[in-house]
């Protein structure tokens, strides 16, 4: 801000925010930056991608909606799945690969699952190299804990705050490397070079939340690492950031999403008090000995063991109890079945009237473990229940119920490079699809972030070098259109809608009609409701000005939530079979033909408000040499 600055007179004295919107629609008025790689999102995947791209020699920017270190990864509790074999030397990538594929009911992209299983051990050791302090085994190695669906204890962890350790480690690494971070800066548009036959990324458009000013990034590579979509549901473990931004950006840029109908409802969220409904209760509680009970005191999970997992699940309480001490000669307790199975079982118990007083079921670790063990292994669970619900988990059971936690579907990417259908556009972490099939195993998310974050970062850097000599085409009118679009809620005429109200109504629709158990008529109704909400969203208005205005931010996020919700509902209606995180009451069986099919969603017009299109695609077949891993002994 020099005195020669034409907008100086209308700027905010502290932030430099231009208070006159007309000034900002001039393209030369925007702050702009040149980078090789722009990473959108600063959770585990984004930070790992940025580090990888930086290490490959690229000029990298991290652009994130929140302060650095606050991304949703911070909430991950249980651990990072990696077959290091520190506790069970029999563990190896093949077993991990098999567990992951079976947990996803074989709908996973086999190549992603393979890369993930092969590379995650080194990714964990790398974190240690950068300062992470994992819990140790008696001989000093990284400790590994039990989790649902994993044959061996394989989750590297730090108490039950593994996500915090991971994000802090990556954050400190990124800071040490001097990577540029644009905090509290939200990307609303990806630009592509339209002159060429195949579109290719040329940059991104964003606004600073602090000032409401716009910023333009010129870059040939953009990595989407924006996480998930949970904020479209009423009961969720996800934070405000989870509005499906990357999913929507990808669609609007011409990329595709796959299998959006697969949404994971984590079996154990808090149910009371209302203010904390949905907050996660880590699976480690069950891994460390917690049992699920209904109001009759029965361990009901024994009644819900599916055929598919019979051979590896204990069918008597005696055997399940024996497993904690002797894992070789006993099978796993049914509480440790994959999350989709446990969530459905809890849902059924509650529906049958055997729930807890506040509409959940009981999760009891107090009667198996002593107070000292619980406080050491599950410190943040202890803290969370004590502080927010007045429940002492070392003395009494918790009340828990399903909560929207994760979306398995996401941007369709190449398994090795994480590139989407659009040249220069990459996706890694929760925003990418394929890796987890129809259901994700606990612990596989943090490792996913590291493995594919790194791969995406490398690929993005490589792509930037390849096209270094070609100029980026980033037309002024596209930039100006982005600004106008972002400012629209300030100047809507006619009837006005409150963004908070529309968000609440959308959450209600998704929770009621596209929830854990689905039916054709309800799904069809949800699509009608979403169309109505889209119509209402055209009249969104916000009060106040552009400086740190949450109402405006929500108005912009809301269009992403609406597109993503439409994708979920449409794909859920189309897939007439039940599998993993998609349960159809009217088609309760896992049809094998559907088990080999992806549903692909696109937004042909690229325009917000238009309808998404859906097509079927054959799942890539697994090579023969991997088949024997799935033959039962």
């Amino acid at each position: 801000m020099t005195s020669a600055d034409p907008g100086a007179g209308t700027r905010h004295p502290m932030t430099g925010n231009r208070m006159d919107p007309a000034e900002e629609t001039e393209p030369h008025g925007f702050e702009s930056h040149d980078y090789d790689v722009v990473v959108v999102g600063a959770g585990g995947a984004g930070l790992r991608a940025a580090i990888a791209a930086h290490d490959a020699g690229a000029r990298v920017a991290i652009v994130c909606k929140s302060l650095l270190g606050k991304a949703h990864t911070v909430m991950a509790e249980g651990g990072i799945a990696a077959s290091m074999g520190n506790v069970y030397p029999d563990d190896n990538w093949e077993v991990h690969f098999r567990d992951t594929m079976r947990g996803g009911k074989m709908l996973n992209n086999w190549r992603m699952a393979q890369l993930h299983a092969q590379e995650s051990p080194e990714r964990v050791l790398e974190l240690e190299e950068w300062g992470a302090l994992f819990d140790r085994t008696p001989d000093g190695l990284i400790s590994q804990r039990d989790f649902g669906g994993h044959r061996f204890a394989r989750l590297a962890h730090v108490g039950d705050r593994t996500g915090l350790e991971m994000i802090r480690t990556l954050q400190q690494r990124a800071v040490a490397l001097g990577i540029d971070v644009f905090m509290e800066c939200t990307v609303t548009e990806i630009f592509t070079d339209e002159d060429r036959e195949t579109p290719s990324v040329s940059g991104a458009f964003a606004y600073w939340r602090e000032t409401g000013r716009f910023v333009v990034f010129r870059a040939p590579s953009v990595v989407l690492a924006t996480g998930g979509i949970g904020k479209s549901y009423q009961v969720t473990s996800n934070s405000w950031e989870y509005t499906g931004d990357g999913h929507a950006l990808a669609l609007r840029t011409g990329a595709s999403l796959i299998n959006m109908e697969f949404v994971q409802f984590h079996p154990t969220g808090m149910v009371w008090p209302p203010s904390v409904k949905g907050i996660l209760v880590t699976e480690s509680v069950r891994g460390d000995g917690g049992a699920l009970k209904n109001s009759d005191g029965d361990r009901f999970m024994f009644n819900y063991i599916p055929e598919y997992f019979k051979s590896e699940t204990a069918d008597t309480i005696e055997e399940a109890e024996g497993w904690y001490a002797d894992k070789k000669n006993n099978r796993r307790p049914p509480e440790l079945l994959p999350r989709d199975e446990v969530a459905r079982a809890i849902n059924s118990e509650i529906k049958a009237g055997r729930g807890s007083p506040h509409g959940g079921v009981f999760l009891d670790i107090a009667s198996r473990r002593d107070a000292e063990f619980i406080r050491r292994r599950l410190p943040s669970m202890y803290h969370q229940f004590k502080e927010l619900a007045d429940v002492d988990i070392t003395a009494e059971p918790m009340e828990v119920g399903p909560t929207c936690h994760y979306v398995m579907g996401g941007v369709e990417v190449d398994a090795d490079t994480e590139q989407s259908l659009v040249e220069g556009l990459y996706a890694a972490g929760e925003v990418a699809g394929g890796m987890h099939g129809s259901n994700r195993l606990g612990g596989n998310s943090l490792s996913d972030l590291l493995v594919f974050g790194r791969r995406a970062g490398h690929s993005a850097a490589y792509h930037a070098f390849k096209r270094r000599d070609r100029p980026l085409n980033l037309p002024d009118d596209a930039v100006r259109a982005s600004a106008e679009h972002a400012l629209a809620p300030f100047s809507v005429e006619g009837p006005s809608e409150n963004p908070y109200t529309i968000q609440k109504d959308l959450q209600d629709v998704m929770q009621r009609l596209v929830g854990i158990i689905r039916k054709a008529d309800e799904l069809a109704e949800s699509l009608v409701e979403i169309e109505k909400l889209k119509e209402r969203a055209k009249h969104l208005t916000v009060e106040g000005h552009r400086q740190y205005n949450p109402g405006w931010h929500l108005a912009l996020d809301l269009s992403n939530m609406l597109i993503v919700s439409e994708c979920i509902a449409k794909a859920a209606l189309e897939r007439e079979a039940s599998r993993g995180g998609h349960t159809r009451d009217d088609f309760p069986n896992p049809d094998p033909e559907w088990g080999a099919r992806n549903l692909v969603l696109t937004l042909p017009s690229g325009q917000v408000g238009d309808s998404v299109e859906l097509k079927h695609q054959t799942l890539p077949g697994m090579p023969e040499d991997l088949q024997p891993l799935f033959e039962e002994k």
Partner: protein
Amino acid sequence: MGYDLKMRVWRGDASGGDLGDYSVEVEEGEVVLDAIHRLQATQAGDLAVRWNCKAGKCGSCSAEVNGRPRLLCMTRLSDFEESETITVTPVRSFPVIRDLVTDVSFNYEKAKEVPAFAPTPRDEDGKRRMAQQDVERGQEFRKCIECFLCQNVCHVVRDHEENKPAFAGPRLFLRYAELDMHPLDTNDRRNLAQNAAGLGMCNITKCCTEVCPENIKITDNAIIPMKERVADRKYDPVVWLGSKIFKRGDRAGRDEV
């Protein structure tokens, strides 16, 4: 069980502001952040507040409730009388951006000044070995969720803007201590902690420890031991010389940065 809560919330920006009076409906079991959210959704759509996890894990929603530095998401309404007016103001040690949102970049700038972790090489099998009891000291400090409440209450900077350039604050002292106690680190940051980060300016009044929502014993377990380590280095020439010549004990293989 719901009732109408009377709230006063600071509204304004760097140029000034005022407490606004509100009445908002609240329910049993709610926290202050719930009340703020309901205000946003129904009465003040542009009320600025930072938050992310709403579970005490991310440290975004720091503010002052009735003058006490707290996380809004962990402050239960049941801690107050129903008739009581709750006053919410932004944290005081950082410049206001808008309403409850402050400019916390000070902390991120100070974090950049800490030399990175630099481990010894891996063992032959590609892994590293550390005893649980040796990592536990550092693990306590790594529970920090960077809510910066400790930075906010520290009287060295709370009303002394002039001290900020020379003082990194309790959050960063935790970081120095964590690295100094890391079994595999090879850097010696004691000199830096004392001089550049201003460890010496702390006179251990424990304000930081009192407000830490993670119950980290910042003063007793990080700052005081760090001060002792600095003193060892500074005042005991025999220890200093010995560590240089024999490279033994805790200091083996550490190089001053």
